[in-house]
């Protein structure tokens, strides 16, 4: 078939090239993930983009028995039990505005925003103004990557996003906000995110051989945030965070 037959002359080819450049220049993250999806097979990549409501409308609010109920509460080893026995609630870092971390952060009853890029997925949490980046480009952690939120890598598989996070710093309340259980540098958090209709769902599995005898997991969901909702700043106030401490009967005098 000649160029004339196809209806595309040399000027037409230049036009197509220019149009392609414009598309690349104005591409949004959503378009980028769609393009990347063509390479990886679109059906593998769930659409997780959006602002999600993790509050009481979506699931029971967290507490000493939620999401870790008697059925899925982890089996603690002697080290964890000893830490728990001496733990003093007043010393919990959250009373100094230290942010919540995995696996508690995901279940805090606040909103979060997910943005998917070809090389990363970004989870922004309204609680404590936290941002987690899940790298999809094959990079690996270095010894400099130990942080309170750890280092996350991910991949798409069978319509789900799989995330593995390691390189957490030691955290005296790294398990949750309620049970006085620490987590160590050996903590590993695996998350699987997928869509069910309008809902975002996740199963989280926690391993930490320093404190847990075996992995433990919970499953939860988020609902779409109201149309147009934008995450608010949290700006934890250290004076107010610590204000209620004086209302406790101290464990140690």
């Amino acid at each position: 078939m000649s160029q004339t037959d196809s209806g595309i002359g040399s000027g037409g080819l230049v036009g197509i090239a220019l149009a392609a450049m414009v598309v690349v220049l104005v591409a949004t993250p959503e378009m980028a993930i769609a393009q990347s999806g063509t390479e990886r097979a679109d059906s593998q990549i769930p659409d997780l983009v959006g602002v999600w409501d993790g509050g009481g409308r979506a699931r029971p609010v967290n507490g000493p028995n939620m999401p870790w109920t008697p059925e899925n509460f982890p089996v603690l080893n002697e080290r964890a039990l000893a830490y728990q026995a001496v733990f003093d609630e007043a010393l919990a870092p959250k009373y100094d505005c230290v942010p919540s971390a995995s696996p508690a952060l995901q279940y805090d009853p606040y909103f979060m925003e997910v943005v998917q890029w070809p090389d990363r997925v970004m989870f922004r949490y309204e609680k404590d103004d936290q941002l987690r980046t899940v790298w999809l480009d094959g990079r690996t952690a270095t010894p400099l990557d130990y942080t309170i939120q750890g280092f996350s890598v991910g991949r798409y598989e069978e319509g789900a996003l799989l995330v593995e996070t390691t390189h957490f710093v030691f955290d005296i309340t790294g398990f949750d906000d309620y049970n006085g259980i620490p987590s160590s540098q050996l903590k590993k958090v695996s998350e699987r995110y997928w869509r069910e209709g309008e809902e975002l769902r996740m199963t989280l599995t926690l391993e930490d051989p320093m404190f847990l005898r075996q992995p433990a997991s919970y499953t939860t969901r988020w609902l779409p945030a109201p149309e147009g909702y934008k995450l608010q700043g949290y700006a934890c106030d250290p004076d107010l965070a610590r204000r209620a401490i004086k209302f406790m009967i101290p464990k140690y005098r």
Partner: protein
Amino acid sequence: MRFFLWILSLCGVLGVGLLMPGAPVNAHHASEPFYDATKSVEAVGVVTRFVFRNPHSFLYVDTASVDGKTTSWEIEMGAAVSMSRRGWTPETILAGDQIRVVGAPSKAPGTFGMCCAELTRPNGSPITP
């Protein structure tokens, strides 16, 4: 009749207060280490400050006893980020407002803290955004 309505509203408020479980104050921390959910106290007085912030808002209320002694109460409330989604603003309660507060008292002796409280105006209407 008006007095009867006042008593009725007070009973309602107390009933709600006594039935309230030891729920966390908006999930930053459990209320149990700080407040005794098996008890209920009442404070009727004047708002001196309403601090609408995270991780917990606080309401400050001064009450006066018959001998003229002032007690300053600190009422722990939810996170501003969550309360604002329900319509609360820093102006929902203002300094100088007359208020009745019924909630779980703080545990440490000699302190005047309260949480998980029901707030009402002098006419018995609940304070809502």
